[in-house]
């Protein structure tokens, strides 16, 4: 406590005006810090990342919150926010604090290519725009027109990443099997912008969102199916303020409805022990807990076992908030804990429903050399396996 730090009311006001409206509500109880997944892992980052203290520094406009390593560490999993006794919108505060830096054009090194690609290509993966629809090859998916009921919006990750493309393809198969009226606008779409907004680049987010809204509104889109819970979040929570109002569903929500209506049948037996990893953005951020479980249990022979930390207590894979692009030393990754959770339950398969989670869990499973006992599958892939049996 030797150095004296100046309280900056100006900085405080700037943070609040960037969207941290509930910053003052924080009473510094510290529940957030204790619930933070960083407490579950060892390492340097775990030692310095203190979400409570970050709120405090923001409240006083004290220097220190802008330390790049700390400021961009939050995975936006929502564990703290869901449990905050004062209903402080902690993630929004983090976003605003990041915005005070990013808005000035300063971005951590590992995120610069991401922003660059979003500017240039409309996706964070440095994928050429003309290749965005490559995943559709071999599939008979019509373009979305006025008469189509749903727009299927595929996450950038599943457009470009070969592993992830499987998810998009599986979702298509399931929708077709259930006879859903849907079409795509993949070639013209841009990234939903969910993650770049969390990173703090409001301007870039607005650019992406406005372009999508213009496209959707122009094509007469009313209902959207997303493959990723992150896109689901963005369309539902972020787009309305920019004039994009749609009925948005994650594909698992729609499929579980179709299952109940008898329009989707999953005939093939998969006699395995299956566990479900709730993605933060499907669970805590969108409160979808039952739909994926209903679908898994509909597969003949599949036995659903719950992880110790499940539903609103689910542990983040660490792929949110821009962390999917962060380099984290092996041994400090949340995904490893998740794989161990599943192994502890003697599960044969860990199923999840988010392209980010798949990336993180795949890495962790391989890193821990657990591929021989545990398989990581996306929900749509698992269901397709039953379809095809």
């Amino acid at each position, binding site marked *: *406590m030797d150095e004296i*730090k100046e*309280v900056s009311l100006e900085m405080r006001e700037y943070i*609040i005006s960037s969207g941290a409206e509930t910053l003052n509500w924080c*009473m510094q109880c510290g529940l957030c810090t204790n619930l933070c997944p960083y407490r579950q892992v060892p390492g340097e980052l775990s030692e310095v990342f203190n979400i409570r*203290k970050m709120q405090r520094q923001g409240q006083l406009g004290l220097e220190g919150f802008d330390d790049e390593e700390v400021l961009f560490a939050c995975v936006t999993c929502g564990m703290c926010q869901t449990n905050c006794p004062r209903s402080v919108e902690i993630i929004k505060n983090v976003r605003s604090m990041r915005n005070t830096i990013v808005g000035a054009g300063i971005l951590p090194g590992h995120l610069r290519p991401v922003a660059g690609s979003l500017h240039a290509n409309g996706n964070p993966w440095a994928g050429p725009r003309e290749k965005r629809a490559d995943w559709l090859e071999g599939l008979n998916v019509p373009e979305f027109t006025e008469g189509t009921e749903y727009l299927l919006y595929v996450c950038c990750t599943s457009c470009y990443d070969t592993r992830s493309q499987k998810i998009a393809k599986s979702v298509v198969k399931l929708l077709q099997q259930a006879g859903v009226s849907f079409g795509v606008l993949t070639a013209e779409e841009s990234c939903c912008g969910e993650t770049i907004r969390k990173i703090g680049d409001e301007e870039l987010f607005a650019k992406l969102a406005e372009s999508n809204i213009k496209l959707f509104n122009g094509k007469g889109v009313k209902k959207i199916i997303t493959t990723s819970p992150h896109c689901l979040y963005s369309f539902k929570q972020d787009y309305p303020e920019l004039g994009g109002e749609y009925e948005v569903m994650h594909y698992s929500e729609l499929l579980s409805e179709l299952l109940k209506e008898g329009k989707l049948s999953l005939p093939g037996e998969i006699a395995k022990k299956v566990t479900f990893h709730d993605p933060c953005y499907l669970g805590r951020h969108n409160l979808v807990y039952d739909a994926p479980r209903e679908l898994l249990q509909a597969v003949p022979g599949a036995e659903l076992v719950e992880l110790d930390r499940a539903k609103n207590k689910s542990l983040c894979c660490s792929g949110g908030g821009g962390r999917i692009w962060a380099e984290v030393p092996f041994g400090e990754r949340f995904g490893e804990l998740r794989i161990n959770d599943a192994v502890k339950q003697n599960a044969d398969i860990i199923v999840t429903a988010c392209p980010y989670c798949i990336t993180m869990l795949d890495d962790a499973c391989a890193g821990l050399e657990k591929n021989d006992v545990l398989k990581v599958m996306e929900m749509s892939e698992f269901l397709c396996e039953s379809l095809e049996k």
Partner: protein
Amino acid sequence: MVKKTGVYICTGCSLGESLEIESLSKVATKEGKVPVCKTHPFLCGSEGVELIKSDIENEGVNTILIAACSPRVNYDVFEFDSVIMERVNLREQVIWSQTANDEDTQMMAEDYLRMGLAKVKHIELPEPYQGVNMVKTLLVVGGGLTGMTSALEAAKAGYKAVLVEKSSALGGWMNGLFKQVPRKAPYTAPEEVDVAELIKEVEANPDVTVYTGAEILEIAGSPGMFDASISQNGATITERVGSVVLATGAVPYDPTKLDYLGYGKYENVITGLQMEEIASKGKIVRPDGKEVQTIAFIQCAGSRDPEHLPYCSATCCVESLKQASYIKEQNPEANVFVFYKDMRTPGQYERLYQQVQKDGSIFVRGEIKGITEDGEKNLLIEATDVLSGATISTEAVDMVVLANGMVPTTALGEDFAAKADTEEDKKDDGPKPEVILRSNLLNLSYRQGPEMPTLKYGFADSHFICFPYETRRTGIYAAGSVRAPMDELSSIEDATGATLKAIQCMESSAQGMAVHPRVGDMSFPDFAMSRCTQCKRCTVECPFGAINEDDKFNPLPNPTRCRRCGICMGACPERIITFKNYSVPMIGNLIKSIEVPDEDEEKPRILIFACENDAYPALDMAGINRLKYNAWVRVIPLRCLGSLSLVWIADSMSAGIDGIYLLGCKHGDDYQCHFIKGSELAEIRLSKVSETLDRLDLDSERVRMDQISITDYDKIPAMLDDFAAKLEELGPNPYKGF
């Protein structure tokens, strides 16, 4: 009254199966020669009670000894008018704490019966004290929120009240406020001060006589018969009142002592009260006219600081939050800092705290490192911020408000004893008189001093655990912030509670009964004045200032001030003080009635003098929990350990008792003694007896004293065994058998 004694032995609750009832009966009939001795298997049942009633009505039995359960239970069942009644505790303190059908258990039961018989032999029926011209009018001193509430509550309950206020108008502290803290849902914003309505109500009430601009010149007399002289506009009015509520409140802590926070040094450092004045005038501006845009509140300015007020003043956090709302209402963009140690916003005040937080005030938990002034008389504050782990400094603030805490009005004034101390008094190694300050509130014409004895921090003493409104002056009840730091709602509640106690006191006094804790006791001390040596011990030791002095320096008891604890009886070296049902010879004969076996029988005897209020119940509790304890003990309950007469120690020793154990309440600042100083006085007396014992070649370790509370019952068996082991080491009492 010629006594006809009936002994009734209950055989229920396994008493019949655990003791030889026949030989127990023989103790009554053969040794005690009582004309009536009966047993019943269910004495507390209607048939058992009828049996006793029938003997009272038909056999002329007028003295009853019930040998059954503890006197702490079934007291409502065994209640008979106009007869002498005593209980022998064979259940909790014999069969539940001893081995059944054991020789030693039987001896214990028989001894208790003998002791009971010895006791009833001495008891006479008390005759209630009747005062002269007793009234049931309440005097309330202090016309603030507490005082006005008290007077109105008394009037609503059907009593007359006299309300005396020093200043020219009623309202007290509330008059100085711009707004009051929220009392209504949603508790998020200050409210308009509503004291005017209360003042109107008080002034309109025909049963309340209000004297404003008035002071108490003197209060003489005792409960039911206090004479208060009130001076108003140069005239003196006398009112006879039954009891008094002291509601003189508190004053802010002297801010000139807070120069380290800039008070007196910088003109824009003000107190909370000054902030109310500024806000009442309209726009919140500094003396130089600058509008206050940035303000800092410094909490615990003096409070919770051993150098100033060691206690929490209870209201300052909420008051500062309220004042923060003033600023935010004037200008929502204004910046508010609140520097605090802990924000204490109990109950609904948490909602105000949350609102002020949401409105954007900045709360800083930590210590103030320094305050400086810039060229424009703005202030810069440096403080630690525990929550960010840094030392921070603010930008210039326009004004600093110190939340400077409260000091009770009883804490002000010179020490009465300091002047009264003569050389002779200083030599006296006896108990010291209590601290009384000349605070000019009540001006009691008591020998012990003109005001209330105060405890920690100058608040009027009260037994905060068991009976908060009782003070050390019977019939005078403290309420509001003169009793403890408190807010408005608590003051209203306090006023109501104290008024109720004051009414109870007037009613009890009129019937000659004691007030708390011996409620309903009709006995009072009788002084055999011809033998008095004017030693003043009784007047000094009575914790309630019940005993004045007449013009010939003899003690002048005031029976309605008396709480019947018997401390004067224990204090009197001449043993001239007795109660009809409690006296030095009575306990002496109880001791002598115990059968002490010869040395070769190897059955030592331990006498326990147990305080009736905590130690005796603790012994019962041990029995209720079936904790077996030493079989050599015999328990004599005392009204208070302070009533212990040293002659009982000598009586016990010469009776061949091997050891004496005194069990009393915790004393000191957080005392639990129901009579404040009883156990402390017993300890002081005991320190003197050890020299005597040593002289008689009796080891002073034969007498032990411990503090015990009711919750310590589980420690009793080990405590007794430890003492028994010590006595074994010392060997038998050499006076045994003489």
